[in-house]
């Protein structure tokens, strides 16, 4: 049997925030592994620490304790600028509010992460066109975010996330701000990326319909990762409503 080593290793991660004199623990000793090619959904109630965990995995936040390894590299040991370079190369980001730059059109938004690579203008343009074609927006390249629907903006954001061919894609509530139909399209797109291109996707969501597209679901509650039985139960609970 072939053993695929995990692409992301989350080892004993803890994080707390200080609110005045109070220390509020957000993540408590979290350990789990994500294999290469996985499509994982992190679920849990609001405030349970999903975003914090995702940010730590993606290298835009740091844990108080513990280690994150991505493709064997301990990213918690990197300096800020090393981490920035690492993100540029290895992580594609999809946010709830798309976070496109409003003064740049779709093509330029997708081009943004490529500016940090050594690609020529022509190569960048080609990469962008491919990415926009993948998300089905090749005909909207010169539209500005304000001229696109929420679903279309999120697709541009996904194109921006995949254009550098990153090691992992992280998505924080990618359908959280979308109507049901657009949400479905986005989820189908992510699923296709995972199935067809073998992209590792780590997605935070509290939308059960979205989570259903993922292969694995992790359930986070008050900063603790619940075991699978409970997830199953909770997940079913969610789907009922």
């Amino acid at each position, binding site marked *: 049997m072939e053993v695929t080593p995990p692409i992301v290793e989350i080892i004993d991660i803890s994080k707390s925030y200080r609110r005045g004199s109070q220390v509020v623990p957000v993540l408590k000793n979290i350990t789990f592994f994500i294999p290469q090619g996985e499509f994982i959904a992190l679920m849990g109630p609001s405030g349970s620490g999903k975003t914090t965990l995702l*940010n730590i995995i*993606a290298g*835009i*936040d740091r844990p108080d304790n513990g280690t994150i390894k991505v493709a064997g590299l301990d990213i918690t040991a990197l300096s800020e*600028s090393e981490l*920035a*370079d*690492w*993100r*540029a*190369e290895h992580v594609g*980001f999809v*946010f709830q*509010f798309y*976070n496109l*730059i*409003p*003064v*740049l059109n779709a093509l*330029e938004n997708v*081009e*943004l*992460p490529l*500016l*940090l690579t050594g690609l020529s203008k022509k190569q960048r343009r080609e990469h962008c066109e491919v990415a926009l074609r993948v998300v089905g927006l090749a005909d909207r390249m010169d539209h500005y975010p304000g001229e696109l629907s929420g679903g279309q903006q999120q697709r541009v954001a996904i194109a*921006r996330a995949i254009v550098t061919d990153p090691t992992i894609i992280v998505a924080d509530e990618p359908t959280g701000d979308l109507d049901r139909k657009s949400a479905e399209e986005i989820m189908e797109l992510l699923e296709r990326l995972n199935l067809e291109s073998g992209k590792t996707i780590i997605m935070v969501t509290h939308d059960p319909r979205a989570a259903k597209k993922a292969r694995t679901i992790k359930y986070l509650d008050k900063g603790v990762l619940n075991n699978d039985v409970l997830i199953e139960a909770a997940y079913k609970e969610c789907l009922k409503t």
Partner: protein
Amino acid sequence: MFLLKLLIRNALRHKLRTFLTVLSVAVAVLAYCLLQTVIDAWYSGVRISSSTRLITRNAGSLILPLPMSYREKIRQVDGVKNVSFGVFFGGVYIDEKNFFPNFGGEVKTFLEIYPEYVLTPEDKEEFLKDKRSAIAGQKLANQFSWKKGDKIILKGTIYPGQWEFVIKGIYKGRDRNVDETRFFFHWDYINEQLKKMQSTRADHIGFYIVEITAPELAAVVSERIDSMFKNSIAQTHTETEKAFQLGFVSMSDSIIMALSAVSYIVIMIILAVVANTINMSTRERIGEYAVFKTLGFGGLKIGGLILGESLIITTVGSMLGIVLSFPAAEAFKEKVGTTIPVFYITGNTILEGLFISVIVGLLASIIPIYRGVRTPIVEGLRRIV
């Protein structure tokens, strides 16, 4: 290219705010240029004064006269090439507010010593011949629409009476630093009348203009002249024309200082205005900067975005201000007429205007850059909702 595009589009995001900021930079730079030009104009007399000209005046005071008889003695001094003299006449043309400097003098030597006052040969000849004639600078003539042959009456203040002169020439400056607002005439004309009416005042003049053979001799010759009259009734004080002019200028030192202070205050104000605008933009875009950082853009690039936007606003504003300062200076010159004789914007002032815009752009973005770069990504992203 991409960056420039982004910078310009960012700057144009709040068109009204950017427009108002650019406008205030423009107005401030305009004010700065005009103030500097006024200050320059003030010193222009000093700048153009020749280093081979000395002024000998009464050691007691500028307003005390010197006997005409000194002239021959000064001419004998070693190192002296030519001697002329002048009198501040202080005549009023129709009304006090029409002020312009009018001098009586020995016009032949005067024109020899001051080659920068240019007359046509015919005008010069006629002027030298006719005792009652006078010449006026081009600007002065324009102001009162005088032309050759006009009769001008000056009301004497220091020398009572109605004095009539005939304009025999309009002089032009050899270059634009030359004061074209002066009025010169033959002192003989006045002196002859004084001999009849106020004989004690006759045969006295205001100051001697001494041309020396070489600039290095200025100190020695001054010393020789002054020591010659040490034991006379009227002792003399001789100095270079430059020092003499500076003496005038320093009387107004406090005004100049006030003007300089105002121009620096103006700079401080634009600094505050620009800093405020950049600060507002940065605050609004803290989420966007977080996105840039998330994508791997480093602090230098984020700082560059903020600084670039600041510099675009200040340089566009300052260029606008500089462009506007030319017509403004023209209008100003029209208005003040002959009060400030030499008034034009120097290359230095323009460079200063641009330099200020760069400095202001830099200073205004320091705090926003600090904030933009140092805000943690996670915190920046939380602002986007």
